[in-house]
């Protein structure tokens, strides 16, 4: 009888487990009530709850169910590239091809990645950990997970949750920075209507991109290859079934596995550490710097450009597709209700995804 009682989870509960339950409930509440990244926060929250039930052995190496999802899905680099396949099938590069200058804004927003990277080094994190923290600034969940699994797997829960949390908080974090760094006149700048992009250009783009980027930064290949393959599925028009599967069913399946695997890494003993607070703090620094750098770069380009860019679209370079582009549109419309910036902001927005993958590739090459 005593042995039976000792083998129940109840007597093995710790204070840490309770704290993690509260965090799990908070995530599930935010997802359901506030609609903050619900597709991820629901499985992550549930994963946290499950892994903090004592003696369930869900993360036991070799046999635990969630360990298998984590090991074969994340450690084997399967899930993030599959998410990128789906993202590619959902992404329209048309606005970016139509106005290629906006690609530079996607690069500018990567400054935040390096600001957080140095901030993390300053706090005392080692290089691989600092790389994993810095990449949060790219506002790209799968890339953050991909980088962290390679470089600092013990930080996976913190970096993944920080990335997705800040992505959902883009409409709160970005507008004050955008207003601070721009004048009302700048926010009113109207941009020339985008030219239509031909089907040929859209088909050639993923082919060229994958060659160029994988030749320059080979370590970014797993994500870039799948991203561009998904986009080719979408644009070529002859594999609609594959494109639909990548963008819908497959994406949904891997999102479930990703969410629950990330949640499963957040056991009390791994997550309740002071360094997690610093990860979140540096993530916020990264987001702030990325937003500011994108805007300032747009203003810098305007010094030389004949056709002015509305600096508000610079902030969309932080990826977080399409949320960051929507924020640019909303802020632009506040200054001039007839100014439509959404499609212009989609250029730096998708360029930001490419820029973050390249930055991650460099981290993976040099950060070990």
């Amino acid at each position, binding site marked *: 009888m005593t042995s039976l009682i000792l083998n129940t989870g109840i007597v093995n509960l710790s204070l840490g487990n309770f704290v993690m339950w509260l965090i799990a409930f908070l995530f599930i509440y935010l997802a359901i009530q506030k609609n903050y990244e619900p597709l991820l926060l629901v499985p992550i929250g549930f994963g946290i709850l499950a892994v903090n039930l004592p003696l369930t052995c869900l993360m036991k190496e070799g046999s635990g169910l969630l360990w298998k999802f984590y090991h074969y899905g994340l450690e084997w680099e399967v899930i993030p590239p599959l998410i990128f396949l789906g993202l590619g099938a959902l992404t329209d590069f048309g606005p970016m091809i139509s106005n*290629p200058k906006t690609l530079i804004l996607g*690069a500018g927003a990567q400054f935040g990645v390096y600001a957080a990277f140095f901030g993390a080094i300053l706090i005392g994190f080692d290089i691989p950990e600092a790389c994993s923290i810095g990449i949060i600034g790219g506002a790209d969940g799968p890339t953050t997970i991909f980088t962290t699994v390679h470089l600092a797997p013990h930080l996976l829960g913190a970096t993944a949750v920080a990335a997705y949390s800040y992505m959902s908080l883009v409409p709160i974090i970005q507008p004050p920075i955008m207003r601070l760094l721009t004048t009302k006149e700048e926010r009113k700048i109207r941009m020339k209507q985008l030219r239509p992009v031909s089907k040929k250009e859209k088909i050639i*783009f993923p082919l*060229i991109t994958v060659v160029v980027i994988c030749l320059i930064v080979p370590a970014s290949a797993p994500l870039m290859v799948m991203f561009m393959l998904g986009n080719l599925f979408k644009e070529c028009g002859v594999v609609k079934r594959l494109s639909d599967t990548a963008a819908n069913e497959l994406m949904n399946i891997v999102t479930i596995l990703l969410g629950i695997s990330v949640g499963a890494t957040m056991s009390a003993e791994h997550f309740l550490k002071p360094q997690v607070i610093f990860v979140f703090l540096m993530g916020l620094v990264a987001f702030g710097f990325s937003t500011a750098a994108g805007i300032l770069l747009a203003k810098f380009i305007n010094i030389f450009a004949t056709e002015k860019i509305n600096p508000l679209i610079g902030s969309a370079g932080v990826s977080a597709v399409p949320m960051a582009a929507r924020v640019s549109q909303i802020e632009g419309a506040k200054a001039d209700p007839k100014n439509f910036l959404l499609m212009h902001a989609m250029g730096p927005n998708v360029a930001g995804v490419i820029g973050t993958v390249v*930055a991650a*590739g460099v981290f993976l090459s040099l950060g070990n």
Partner: protein
Amino acid sequence: MIKWMIGLKICAFGLGAVFLCLAVLIAFIYLFGIILKSIEKNSVKKAG
């Protein structure tokens, strides 16, 4: 100190790679835009 040197190296290479990749893409986009336009012009001329 060594950590900072590695950090600087990663930052320099990282930003360099990001800007290089995107600059090359911009160049290709403009180049292909020009090539496709000239192909279209030629085909219109031939059809005419």
